[in-house]
């Protein structure tokens, strides 16, 4: 590095320094080369153009713009890596969930009979949907009873895959479909028509 460029670095624009850091951060991620190579390359190219604009003494606005492009590209790459990691975690969790739910189904086979309907659990796709959703709702009834609500006033029902609120084909949608709804009657114990069918 010659003295001229050393002096230039001291006069570095903060935006350019920031872009350099963002690009270095992305490049240092071990999965970047595999999962964000395009973003990393675009970021480096923009950074090179920014440096060239600076040594060509182009207007500051142009250098700052190019630095911005480099930084954003690097950040997009970093976000992609975050998503890749989250998806890997999600897949591992989904395997774990399948295991846990079949285990739970085996354990609970005997311990199921009574408790008529309400506190209706919903489920995403699983081994035995209505069974699982009922077990999802049961703890809610238990918690209500533990807090003094008479057992006769609480009904538990599993609705399985019926009444989805989100697309069951995506993990996020399935997650939204796994839910427990609590439905309150009026004072004389009646439900509105559209709820009564649930």
């Amino acid at each position, binding site marked *: 590095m010659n003295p001229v460029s050393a002096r230039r670095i001291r006069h570095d624009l903060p935006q350019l320094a920031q872009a350099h850091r963002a690009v270095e951060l992305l490049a240092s991620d071990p999965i970047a080369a595999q999962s964000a190579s395009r973003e990393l390359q675009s970021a480096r190219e923009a950074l090179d153009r920014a440096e060239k604009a600076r040594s060509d003494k182009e207007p500051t606005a142009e250098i700052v713009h190019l630095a911005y492009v480099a930084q*954003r590209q690097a*950040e997009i790459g970093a*976000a992609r890596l975050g998503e890749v990691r*989250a998806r890997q*975690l*999600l897949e591992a*969790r989904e395997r774990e969930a399948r295991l846990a739910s079949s*285990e739970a189904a085996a354990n*609970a086979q005997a311990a199921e009979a009574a408790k008529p309907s309400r506190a209706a659990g919903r489920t995403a796709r699983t081994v035995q949907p209505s069974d699982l959703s009922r077990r999802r709702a049961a703890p809610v009834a238990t918690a209500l009873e533990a807090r003094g609500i008479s057992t006769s006033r609480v009904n538990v029902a599993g609705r399985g895959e019926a009444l989805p609120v989100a697309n069951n084909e995506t993990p*996020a949608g399935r997650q939204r479909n796994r839910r427990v709804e609590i439905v309150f009657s009026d004072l004389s114990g009646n439900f509105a028509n559209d709820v009564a069918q649930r």
Partner: protein
Amino acid sequence: MRSTVFIPVAALAGAALTGCASAPLPVAEFSRAQTLVQQAEHNHAPQFAALDLSRAREKLYQAKTAMDAKKAKLAKRYASEAALDAELALARASAAQAKQSAAELSASIDELKAESQRNSIDP
């Protein structure tokens, strides 16, 4: 003497400005940015990447203003920054969604495990 130096400089600056103004407006870049901002709006960016999205909208607005003023270079700069901001909003939103799904799934696994344990202890 002084004026003879000044006149060519002024003429040059004038030429540069005219060159700038007569450059073609970045119509494609602008509509690309517009599309990306809309995409971000419809893909949970308002929920998961609000700051990036608002930056993108702001840049898009600046790009529009520059387009209207026929400032091609400025418009192109803003449009490309808006597109990048929107892309970042999209990437961050989908990363956040995946993270949230994983966290929610973890919670329901824990619940299912606890329940399963309870059932096996007290059938």
